[in-house]
Every structure is written in C-alpha cells, then in structure tokens.
C-alpha cells in the first residue's frame, strides 16, 4: 500500500491549507443558507415594514390610512431632517417614508388623485412595492365609497374592513404548503463548496503524482501499473468521502430532523453523487495546470461559473430560456434540479426523476474523467 500511504502523507503535509479551505467554505455555505432562507421567508409572509409617517393632514382619510397601515406594519416618526432620514434609511432603521400633506383629505374628496402623497423607498429595496400597492388599493376603495355618496369616516372604516379580505390559496398537495426546510438551503450551496475543496485539495495531491520525474520513477517500479492506480484511486475516494462525511456530520448537527428523514437521506445521496463529479472535475483541472497557483485559479473559475450558470447562486427561475438550455450542460444544474425535486418527495417510492438527475451527474463525472484521461494520454505521448 505504498502509493496509498504516500497519498495520505502528501495530504497530511498540506493539511493546514486544505483545512483552511474546508473551514472557510463551510462558513460561507452556512452564512449563505441562513441569509437566503431569511429573505425567502420574508418575501412570502405578509411582511411587516418599518414605515416612517408624517401626517400633516387633519382630515379623516389621512388618519384612517395610517391606522390601516399600522395594522400590519410598524409606524415610526419621520426623522427630523433630510440627512437624518438618509442615515435611518442607510442603516435600515426605516424601510419606507410616507408624507401625508396638509389638506390631503380635502383634496382627495374633491377628486384629485394624482401624486397627492409622497412616498420614499430605500433604493434597491423590493419590499417597498408591496406597501405602495396596499396604499393604492386602500385609497381606491375609499374613493369608491366616496363616489357612492357615503361619508368620509364611514368610507374609511368600511375600506379597512374590505382590505382584510384575503384570497383563498390552497396547495395541490399538503407537502407543497410547507416552507422549504433549512436543510434545503444548506444543500443548495454544496456544489460550489465541493468544487472548490475538491479542486484545491484533491488537485494538490494529484498534481504531485503527475510530476514528470516522479511519474517516470513510479513507472519503472516493481509495482504493477494497475496496483498503483488502484491505490491512487483509493486515496481519492478516501479524500472525497472524508469531505463528504465532514459536511454531512455538520448537517446532522445543525438540521437533525431534516437529515433523519427521507429527504435528508436523498439530499445526502445527491451530495455524494455530486462529490464524485467534483472529484472528476478536479482530475480534469489537474491536467490543465502546471503549478499550485494555477490550480487556485482553476478552482475559482470552475466553481463560480458552474454555480452561477447552474442555478446555485441565482435561482433558475430568473434565467432566460436560452441560458437555461446552456445550463443543462453543467452538472450543478442537475444537482439543483434534484435538490428541488427532493423537497416534494414523501417516500422512497416516488423518486423517479431524482434518480435520473443523479445519473446525469454521474455521466458528467464520467465525461470529465474521460476527457481528463484523454488529455493525460496525449500529454504523455508528446512528453
């Protein structure tokens, strides 16, 4: 088992840098999953915003409008001057500023509707559109009552009641209704992390074995070529499985319930399949580089491009059809698809599509491995 031993020795020699990568990327994936989960949940819950309101109006409509907003949001004072307001928005103390001008009720009752309120949203925030829509619907309703000849106070009160109407939304299957578990987000970022770690960790060791003189010396040793390769492959399996295990143990510690369910099991299988693919991408990369810094470069190019195009960082829904077609030629796309499908699974019996994605990822692994082998052979011939 000399080759295997050397493999482990090289690995332990580089343990500090490999450990840095593993820890940093574990932290990245944890922070990423937390932040995405939080934004996703906010988007679909009835968000409560922090709205600063300045009511200069003395009439009923202005007062009722604010009372209506107060039901689902937090109302705050408008900061004293423009500068303080910018600061408050900058540090997210307020999400939206609404100014109700004097004589608002009067103007509204006389039929003036365009631009009678002043609203300011934090630049780049998407939640502001929700609140603007609520205000618009509320005022439309009040106006309908007023046009129908109902007095202002009653109109405002009835409008608030009407706004409580909510659409009855049902889910086709019970499992659709549940929000995505935290474990889903953790697994979402695995492709990025695995690609980086495999290319940097496994790549470093592989590169040493590919060193021209070392390879030549190994070739004339008494050990058969088959034996050497077998032990080398065992080393690769050890590393790949080690990294996989490390992440799964973390997942078990953090998302215990999820990991001990069918979904968790399938997610783990998905990650295992992808780790094999990442290892063969690493093998492919090693054929293209000459030095360790080049390997570093490769790891970033491959991991980031696979993640951006494969739908790891940006959800596939946002991509145009053309880009999606291209994405199908990237293994992380199939991983992401499988990860989404897994969330719909209730038992091991109905998992048809998922295995298909697993297979595609494995085919990618085979493809990367074969192309790597081809380059390897071609280089040997020219060397």
């Amino acid at each position, binding site marked *: 088992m000399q080759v295997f031993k050397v493999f482990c020795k090289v690995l332990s020699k580089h343990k500090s840098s490999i450990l*840095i*990568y593993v820890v*940093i990327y574990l932290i*990245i994936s944890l*922070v990423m999953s937390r*932040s995405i989960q939080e*934004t996703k949940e906010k988007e679909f819950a009835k968000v409560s915003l922090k709205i600063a309101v300045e009511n200069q109006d003395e009439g009923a409509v202005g007062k009722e409008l604010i009372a209506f907003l107060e039901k689902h949001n937090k109302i705050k004072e408008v900061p004293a001057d*423009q*500068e303080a*307001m*910018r600061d408050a928005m*900058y*540090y*997210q103390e307020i999400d939206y500023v609404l*100014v109700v001008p004097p004589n608002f009720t009067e103007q509204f009752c006389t039929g003036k*509707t*365009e*631009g009678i*309120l*002043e*609203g*300011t949203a934090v*630049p*780049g925030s*998407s939640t502001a559109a929700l609140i603007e829509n609520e205000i618009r*619907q509320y*005022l*439309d309703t009040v*106006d*309908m*009552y007023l*046009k*129908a*000849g*109902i007095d202002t106070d009653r109109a405002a009160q*009835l*409008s608030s*009641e*009407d706004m409580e*109407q909510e*659409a*009855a*939304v*049902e*889910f*086709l*299957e019970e499992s659709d209704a549940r929000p995505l578990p935290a474990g889903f987000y953790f697994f979402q970022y695995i492709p990025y992390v695995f690609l980086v770690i495999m290319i*940097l960790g496994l790549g470093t060791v592989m590169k040493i074995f590919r060193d021209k003189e070392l390879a030549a010396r190994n070739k004339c040793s008494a050990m058969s070529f088959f034996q050497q390769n077998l032990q080398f492959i065992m080393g690769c399996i050890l590393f790949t499985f080690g990294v996989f295990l490390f992440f799964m143990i973390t997942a078990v510690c953090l998302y215990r319930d999820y990991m001990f369910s069918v979904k968790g099991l399938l997610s783990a299988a998905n990650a295992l399949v992808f780790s094999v693919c990442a290892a063969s991408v690493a093998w492919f990369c090693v054929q293209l580089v000459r030095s*360790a*810094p080049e390997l*570093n470069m490769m790891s*970033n*190019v491959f991991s980031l*491009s696979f993640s*951006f*195009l494969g739908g790891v*960082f940006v959800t596939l829904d*946002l*991509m145009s059809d053309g*880009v999606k077609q291209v994405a199908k030629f990237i293994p992380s796309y199939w991983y992401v698809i499988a990860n989404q499908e897994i969330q719909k699974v209730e038992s091991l019996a109905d998992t048809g599509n998922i295995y298909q994605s697993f297979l595609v990822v494995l085919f990618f692994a085979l493809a990367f491995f074969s192309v790597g082998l081809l380059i390897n052979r071609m280089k040997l011939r020219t060397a």
Partner: protein
Amino acid sequence: MFFRLYVYSMKQTVRQKLIMFWSLIFPIILGTLFRVAFGEFLEEEVIFHQIPVAYVAEEGASPAFAETLKSLEDDGGLLEIIETDGKKAESLLKEEKVEGIFYNRDSGTEEGEVTLTVTRQEMSQSILSSILEQYQRVFHTMGNISRENPAGIEAAAKVIGQQRQYLMEGSITDTPKSVMTDYFYALLAMDCLMGVSMGLQIAVKFKANLSNLAVRRVVSGTSRFGMLMPDLAARITIQFLCTLCSVCYLTYVMKISLGNKFALLLLTTLVGSIVGIFMGFFIGAIGTYKESLKEGVCVCCMMFSSFLSGLMVGGMYRFLETHAPLVNRINPASLIVKSLYSLNIYEGYERYTQSMASLLTIAVLLGAGAFAMIRRERYASI
C-alpha cells in the same frame, strides 16, 4: 533609483501571466457570467411573460370572475387562460403547464366562491393570488355599497380599473438603481481585492525564506523601505489599471450603468486596489509559512471578503446589517461596495468620505503592520 526600480517592477508584474489573469481576465469572466445570469433582469424592470392558468367553473357558478379573467387575458395579456375540468387542470398543474388553478364554485352569491390552487409559492403565484384578492375586495366593497347606498353603485363602479398614481415618488437619489447593480459593485470590490496576489508577490520578494531574490535583497546595503516603495507603487499602478479595464468593460461592453460620478468611482477603485495590495503584502509578511499556504490564505480572505459584500448572494449587506453590523464596518469589500453605493445614492459626500476614510485606515494599518514585520528581519539560517 525609485523610478528605475518602479519600471522594472512593472515589467516583472506584467510578465507574470498568472497574476495578470487574476487581476485582468478573471473579473471580466465573472462580469460576463453575471450579465448572462441576470441578463433579462438588467434589461427590463420585471420579466414580463404571460402566466398560464387553468380555470375550472362548476355549473351554475357566477360568471363575474370569468369576465374579470377574460379582460385580463384580452387587455393586458397578463394571463393565458385554459378553461378545463378539474382532473385535467390538476394534471396540467402537476406537469407545470400552468402556474395555478382557479376553481369557481357555485355558492349561490353573485361573487361566487373562488379559490386558487398552486403547487409552489413564487412570483407568478403571488400575482395570481393578488388578482383573486383584488377581485374579492372589490366585490366586498360593492356589496357594502349596495347595502348602504344602492344608488351610488354606478358611480363607484367607474373607479374600478382606473390606474391611479397616488404616490408621488419622493426620492433620496436621482440615479436609477436596480437590485442587480449591487452584484456589479461587489464584482468591482473583488476586482480591487484581487490585488492580494500581487501584494503577496511583494512579500515573497522580500522574505529571504521564500525566494532567492529576497536573499540577495536582504543582504544588500540599500534601505528596505527604499526597495519596497517602488515595488508597492508599481503593483498598485498595475492593479489600478486592471480595475480600470474591468470598469470600462462593464460600462461600455456590457452596458451596465455604474453611476455617473466616474472620477470618484475610479478614486474608489484606486483606494480599493491599495487595500488589496496591502492585504496581500500583510499576509505574505506574517511568519515563515510556505508560499502555498499564504497563497491559500490570500485567496480565502479575498473570496470571503467578497462573499460578505454580496458577490454570491445579493442582500448580504442587509443581512449583516441586522445580525453583525460590525462586519460591514471593517470588511474591505463591503466598504468598497458601500462607497460605490453611497456615491450614487446620496447627494452629499459624507457617507462616501466615511467609507473611504475607513478603507484608507485599513490600508495604513495593514501597510504599517506588514512593514513592522519585515523591518530588520534577520535570518540565522535558511
């Protein structure tokens, strides 16, 4: 002597293909990837496409909702309605041919009992549910009016469908800004911090245990500071020029609006580049570790810093502002993003100056720390 060393150092750096790749090509690749991934988002405010929806009406159900849907299909082309029966609709939904099913049941009222069935909750589903919600609210309102003052119904009905803009958009900025711009700011921040590899090279050429050149330099009589300055200046110049290329590529080739204060944008990237170079220099100066380990630490620091500024996941800044505001104050990439952001959002320069001052402080601290470590370094044996 300064100028000669400066020119040599420039030549040396430009000839290092790998470093040039990091600083010049990599940001361009990433920028192109962003453009491809967010392509549609940058071109239009919202991606507009017809939402296919199934409509299942029971016998005797009120036609009012069907009329509303029909008008949405004909007028704005918002919906694509497929009228069908319950079983077919379910299979369409399962195959993801439609985004939702509207069931209209006979409830004996004019409004009808309409429900929406979906399989997930995303943008299209939100739009469908808000259509239904609006329909129900209007019906409720009309019901109230017919009870309180039946004569006014006609006048009230005229309000429906009028597109009104009650809100005058107050604004704290003139520059239009999309959420996606943040990704490109983060990209520029990363671009600046790419200088870490160049900074590391300075240290490698100064630590006698890391390179032969350093051995020769350390024994020479020239002051170390005198040798260091041209090196730093040359690296900063090249890094800045690389960033300039990325800015031009993003603005002119990818047509991404990075704001209209071009000169200050460049100043920010210059300061960012200085921070990047000093960061690499500082990491390289620590201890007697191997170059490969330092290289790894450099890349990790750069990537982690960029990640925290929102390179991979948008909205990171907001997330950290609520959970760990300190990170936003000291992370170089976040500070670069923040200065670019405040440059385009705020009229005054107070925020901008604050972020820039923090960046410069970080640069000075890193530079001073690195120099303190390298200064008077002696080797008993190499």
